[in-house]
């Protein structure tokens, strides 16, 4: 066996860098290490004295109660969370037609009261449904008024839409009926 003294065949590695860069870009685009998304909420400012009892017209208030067993009571009747969005839309966008819903979107208020034993999961789900209802209403208004969706409007027009459909959620102090702590 004659050992031939052949030169080592070098693999052309010049494209390796390109492949590696492609991989890098792929990872950069597709992976999100940290979720940084969520529902924005603005809390009311704190005051020592209890808030004044403002008499709201009862028909304007959509009161939502959540108990410690994660059950919903909306306007005095049990409701499935899947129906909450439609009901909220109906309530807000009533314009005084039906006597049990709000007079106008501007007057409509959502009153949310939860128990200390309510799971956070359901609380977020309810907040999400309310927000979804308002987003759809705002989208509908923006479509009618400007012919585009709410998201793509400029700030001034967004403000106008928001003024027509203001999201008013009033959160009551939770009760501790479930006795969790």
């Amino acid at each position, binding site marked *: 066996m004659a050992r031939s003294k052949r030169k080592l065949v070098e693999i052309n590695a010049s494209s390796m860098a390109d492949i590696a860069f492609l991989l890098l870009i792929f990872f950069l685009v597709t992976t999100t290490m940290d979720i*940084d998304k*969520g529902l*924005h909420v603005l809390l009311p400012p704190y005051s020592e004295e209890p808030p004044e009892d403002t008499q709201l017209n009862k028909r304007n208030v959509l009161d939502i109660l959540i108990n410690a067993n994660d059950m919903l009571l909306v306007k005095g009747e049990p409701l499935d969370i899947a129906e909450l969005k439609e009901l909220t839309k109906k309530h807000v966008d009533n314009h005084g037609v039906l006597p049990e819903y709000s007079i106008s979107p501007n007057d409509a208020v959502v009153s949310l009261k939860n128990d200390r*034993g*309510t799971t956070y999961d359901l609380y*977020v*789900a309810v*907040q999400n449904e309310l927000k979804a209802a308002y987003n759809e209403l705002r989208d509908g208004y923006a479509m009618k008024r400007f012919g585009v969706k709410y998201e793509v409007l400029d700030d001034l027009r967004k403000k106008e839409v928001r003024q027509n459909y203001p999201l008013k959620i009033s959160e009551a102090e939770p009760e501790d009926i479930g006795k969790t702590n």
Partner: protein
Amino acid sequence: MAKIRKKGGKETPAISTASLPDIIFILLFFFMVATVMRETEVKVEFKPPKATELQKLEKKSLVSYIYIGAPTGKYEEKFGTAPRIQLNDTFAKETDINQFIQNERSKVDEKLIPAMTTSMRVDRDVKMGIVTDVKQELRKANALKINYSAVPKVDIKR
């Protein structure tokens, strides 16, 4: 046949390792990019709830994080399984939140303070009691912009 066997017996040429540094560098970059976001070690369980109406959190430097959940792993022995609040790297009480917010405020420019957001990273199984207490403390500290951290839900209906 004999010819083929002869060929197979030859030593295989060494693979060039010239590009190995590149690959290592890329890995490095990748980890640098991926880990820069997480400044603290999360010591509590955090399975985010699902939602559809999500908004992105802008300007990370203006965001402070509050974790609430059951302590995980080695911390479970020490702190139990009841949900706890984590601020920065340590477990804290509700009353520490005010100080925490003041600390966060002192890190940023005065003009940017109203734009500061508190991200509530609460485990989905936590009961609302502790969350409400934290919210109350945030109101007292006048940190009113909050964000309930959540992950997108795949909506079947749409």
